[in-house]
C-alpha cells in the first residue's frame, strides 16, 4: 500500500460559509457517493479521498473544487452536484480534466499578486482534522518555543518582526506582550478578539473557519511568553460554523496535549474557553469586551489603566485579534527577518482584506503591506462589476473613510491610509461605483454606529443621533442651507469628546464623504436631486412609452397599484400613488421604466 500512498488523489471542496451557501455540502456528498459507487480506490489502485477545506478567497465563484493528482492541482469553479459525475469519469478515472468547468484566467489573476501567509493553509487543509494541520507543519512552532526558546526570546522575536495588531489600531504586538510580562500578578489572561463586528468584513471568520488551530497555537505561544494560564476566544454568535470548528479544534488540541495541564512536559498550564458574543458592535473595544466576558453590559471605560495592566477581573490581560495571532506561528517558524521582508518601513508583513462591493472578484485576499489600491481593485479584484465607473473605496468600515480615484496609487499601510483620511481598520474594503450615493453611504454607517452606540457618554449617544437625523433629512429632500457645515462642526465635537473608539471614529464616514463628495451633498440639499439615483424620496418613476411592450409585469409587481394600462399597450405610473419602491424598475425586462 505504501507505494500507492504517493499516488494519491485528493479532492478539496471549499466549505467556508460562502462555499456552503453555494451548495458545498451537496457537492462533497456527490463526490463521496460517486467515488464509492465506482469503487475508484480499487479500480485505480490509488488512495482517493474527498474532503472539506476552508475558504480560499474567491467566494464569488463557489463552489470551488480542487482535484489533486500526484501533486498537480486542477481547480474547477461553479461546481454543482450534477457536474460531479463528469469530473469523476473524465478526470479522475480518465485522466483528462474537464475543460468546460475549469477556472478562468481571472481566478489565476486573483491569486497572482497575493502573498498568502495567514491564509496559506486555508483551502488546503481540513479545518476539522487536527492531523491535517499537523502534517502541514502545524504545532511545530509551539514545539520550537517549548524546546528551544525562553519567554524573552519569543517576545524579542515578535518585537523584531514588527508585527502590529491587525484589529485596527495597529499597536505593536511584541510591545504589548512585553508590557504584560513585566507586570507581576498571580493570574494573567490572553483574549482572542473574534468579535468581528464591522459590517463588510469577514477576515476573522474565514481564518477560524479555515484554520482554527493556527489561532490556538498563536494563543498558547503568547500565553507562554507572558505567563497567562487562561485564555478566552470572544467570538460572535452570528458565526455558527466558525464557533463549531473552533470548539472541535480546542477539544482535539487538548486531547493531543497542546492545551491543558502540562504542555510538552514543561509544567506549563494553559487552557482556552470560548465566549459567545451576544451581538454588540461596541464589544470589539477592549474594555467593553472585558465587561462582556465578565457578564455585564458591554460598556467601555476610560483608559488608562490599559488592560495589559488591569484587564479581565482586574488582572493583566492581553487582547489580540484573530489575524494577529494567526501570524505568530509563521514568525516563530520562519523568523522575524523573513516576516519583515514583506511590507513597508513601518507596516510589516501581509494583511488580509475582505474585498467586496462592486468589484468582479469579490472575496478574501491577502496582500503584502504597501501594495497599491489600484493593484488590489483592478488586478486582484478584476475591475468594476458590469464595467461601471469606479467612484470610491471605503476602508475600515464604520470607523473609516472613503478613498477616491486620485488616491488609487496610494500604498496601503497604516500610516498612508491614516494620512489620506481613512484607516486600515480590521480590513473591510468595499468598492463603490457610480450607482452609489455617498450621502446614503454615510447615512448607512451612521445608522449603524448610532444604533450600536452603548449610550454611556453623551457626545456619542446624542451626537450620532443628531448626525443621523440631519443625514436622513438630506436624503429625504428636506435638507437645509447650512446642514453641511453643521455636520462638519458636530462631527469634530463628537470625535474629540467621545469616550471610546466607537464615538471617536463614528463621524469619519461623514467627514470623508463631505470632503470628497461635497457636490453630492449640495445636489441633495439645493437641487433636491440624488445624482446616483439611490435616495428614493428624490426619485420619480415613469414609463417610456416607446420601449414598453405592455407585458404587465410591472403592474403585477407594483405593491401600491399605481400602474395601469391595457395589455400590449404602453402602461403608465400614477405618481401620486407611487411609493417609489422600485419594484417595477427591477422587473422590467425591456428597460422601459425610467428612474430620475
Amino acid at each position, binding site marked *: 500500500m505504501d507505494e500507492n500512498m504517493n499516488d494519491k488523489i485528493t479532492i478539496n471542496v471549499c466549505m467556508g*460559509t*460562502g462555499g*456552503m*451557501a*453555494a451548495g458545498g455540502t451537496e457537492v462533497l456528498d456527490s463526490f463521496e457517493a460517486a467515488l464509492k459507487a465506482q469503487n475508484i480506490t480499487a479500480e485505480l489502485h490509488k488512495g482517493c479521498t474527498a474532503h472539506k477545506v476552508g475558504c480560499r478567497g*474567491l*467566494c*464569488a465563484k*463557489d463552489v470551488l473544487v480542487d482535484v489533486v493528482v500526484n501533486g498537480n492541482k486542477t481547480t474547477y469553479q461553479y461546481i454543482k452536484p450534477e457536474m460531479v459525475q463528469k469530473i469523476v469519469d473524465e478526470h479522475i478515472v480518465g485522466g483528462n480534466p474537464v475543460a468546460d468547468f475549469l477556472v478562468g484566467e481571472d481566478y489565476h489573476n486573483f491569486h497572482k499578486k497575493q502573498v498568502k501567509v495567514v491564509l496559506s493553509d486555508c483551502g488546503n487543509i481540513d479545518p476539522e482534522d487536527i492531523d491535517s494541520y499537523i502534517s502541514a507543519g502545524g504545532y511545530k512552532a509551539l514545539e520550537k518555543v517549548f524546546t528551544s526558546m525562553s519567554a524573552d526570546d519569543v517576545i524579542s522575536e515578535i518585537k523584531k518582526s514588527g508585527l502590529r495588531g491587525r484589529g485596527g489600531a495597529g499597536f505593536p504586538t511584541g510591545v504589548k506582550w512585553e508590557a504584560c510580562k513585566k507586570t507581576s500578578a498571580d493570574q494573567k489572561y490572553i483574549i482572542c478578539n473574534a468579535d*468581528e*463586528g*464591522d*459590517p*463588510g*468584513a*469577514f477576515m476573522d*471568520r*474565514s481564518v477560524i473557519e479555515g484554520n482554527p488551530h493556527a489561532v490556538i497555537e498563536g494563543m498558547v505561544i503568547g500565553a507562554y511568553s507572558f505567563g497567562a494560564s487562561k485564555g478566552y476566544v470572544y467570538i460572535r*454568535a*452570528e*458565526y*455558527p460554523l466558525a464557533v463549531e470548528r473552533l470548539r472541535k479544534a480546542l477539544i482535539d488540541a487538548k486531547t493531543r496535549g497542546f492545551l491543558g495541564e502540562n504542555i510538552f512536559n514543561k509544567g506549563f498550564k494553559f487552557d482556552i474557553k470560548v465566549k*459567545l458574543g*451576544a*451581538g*454588540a*458592535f461596541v464589544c470589539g473595544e477592549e474594555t467593553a469586551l472585558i465587561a*462582556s466576558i*465578565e*457578564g*455585564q*453590559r*458591554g460598556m467601555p471605560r476610560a483608559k488608562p489603566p490599559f488592560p495589559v495592566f488591569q484587564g479581565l477581573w482586574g488582572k493583566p490581560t492581553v487582547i489580540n485579534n484573530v489575524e494577529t495571532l494567526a501570524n505568530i506561528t509563521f514568525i516563530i517558524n520562519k523568523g522575524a527577518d523573513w516576516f519583515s521582508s514583506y511590507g513597508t518601513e513601518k507596516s510589516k508583513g501581509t494583511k488580509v482584506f*475582505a*474585498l*467586496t*462591493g*462592486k468589484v468582479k472578484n*469579490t*472575496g*478574501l485576499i491577502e496582500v503584502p503591506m504597501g501594495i497599491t489600491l489600484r493593484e488590489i481593485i483592478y488586478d486582484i479584484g478584476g475591475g468594476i462589476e458590469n464595467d461601471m465607473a469606479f467612484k470610491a473605496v*471605503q476602508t475600515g*468600515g464604520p470607523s473609516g473613510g472613503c478613498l477616491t480615484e486620485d488616491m488609487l496609487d496610494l500604498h496601503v499601510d497604516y500610516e498612508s491610509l491614516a494620512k489620506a483620511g481613512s484607516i486600515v481598520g480590521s480590513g*473591510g474594503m*468595499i468598492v*463603490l461605483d457610480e450607482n*452609489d450615493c455617498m450621502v446614503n*453611504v454615510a447615512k*448607512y*454607517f451612521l445608522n*449603524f454606529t448610532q444604533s*450600536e452606540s*452603548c449610550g454611556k457618554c453623551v457626545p456619542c449617544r446624542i451626537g450620532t443621533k443628531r448626525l443621523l437625523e440631519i443625514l436622513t433629512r438630506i436624503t429625504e429632500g428636506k435638507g437645509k442651507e447650512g446642514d453641511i457645515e453643521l455636520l462638519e462642526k458636530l462631527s469634530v465635537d463628537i470625535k474629540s469628546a467621545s469616550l471610546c473608539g466607537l464615538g471617536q471614529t463614528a463621524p469619519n464616514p461623514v467627514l470623508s464623504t463631505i470632503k470628497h463628495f461635497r457636490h453630492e451633498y449640495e445636489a441633495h440639499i439645493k437641487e433636491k436631486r440624488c445624482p446616483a439615483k439611490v435616495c428614493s424620496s428624490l426619485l420619480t418613476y415613469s414609463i417610456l412609452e416607446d420601449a414598453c411592450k405592455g407585458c404587465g409585469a410591472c403592474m403585477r409587481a407594483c*405593491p401600491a397599484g399605481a400602474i395601469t394600462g391595457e395589455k400590449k399597450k404602453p402602461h403608465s405610473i400614477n405618481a401620486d400613488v407611487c411609493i417609489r*419602491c*422600485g*419594484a417595477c424598475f*427591477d422587473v422590467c425586462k425591456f428597460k422601459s421604466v425610467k428612474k430620475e
Partner: protein
Amino acid sequence: MLFLKITLKKEKLMEKVLQRLANDFREHEGNVISLLQETQEALGYIPEEAVYYFSRELDIPASRFFGVATFYAQFYLKPRGKNIITACCGTACHVKGSDRIISSLKRELKLTVENNTTEDKQFTLEQVACVGACSIAPVVIVNKKVYGKMTSDKTMKEIKALGFNKAESE
C-alpha cells in the same frame, strides 16, 4: 379544562428548566450573560417570569438582567416565529440592495416596525449587521441556512416553500 392542564404542564416544565439553570449559575462562575443565553437556548426567548424567578433565587436585582438583555441584540423578550428569516444589512449587502429585499418582505408578510413576527407566529423577520459572507451579497438566512446573491423573489420562494400562503394571511 384541557387548556388549563396544558398550561400547568408547560409551567412545570419551565420551572424545571429555570431551576437547573439557576443551580448551574451557583455552581459555576456565575455569568449573567451565559445564564440568559442558556435560558434563551432552552425556551426560545427570555420570558419576564424567568427574569423575576432568577432575581428571587439568586438575589440579583431584576434590573441587571433586563439591563443585559436589552443591551445585546441577541436577546429576545418576546417569543419569535417558528421560522426565522434573517436579512443581512452589512455594507456589502446594503450597496447590493438588501434594503429592497427587506421592504418587500415586510410588505408581503405584513410586518411593521414594532411587530416583526407574522400574526400566525410562523415567520419572524430579523436584521443582522453583517454575517460575514459579503462576497455573496446580498445574503438572507432562512432557518440558519445561508442563501447568497438573493433577490426579493428568490426569498419569497423560500418562504412560500415553508408554507407561507399569501391568500390565507389576508
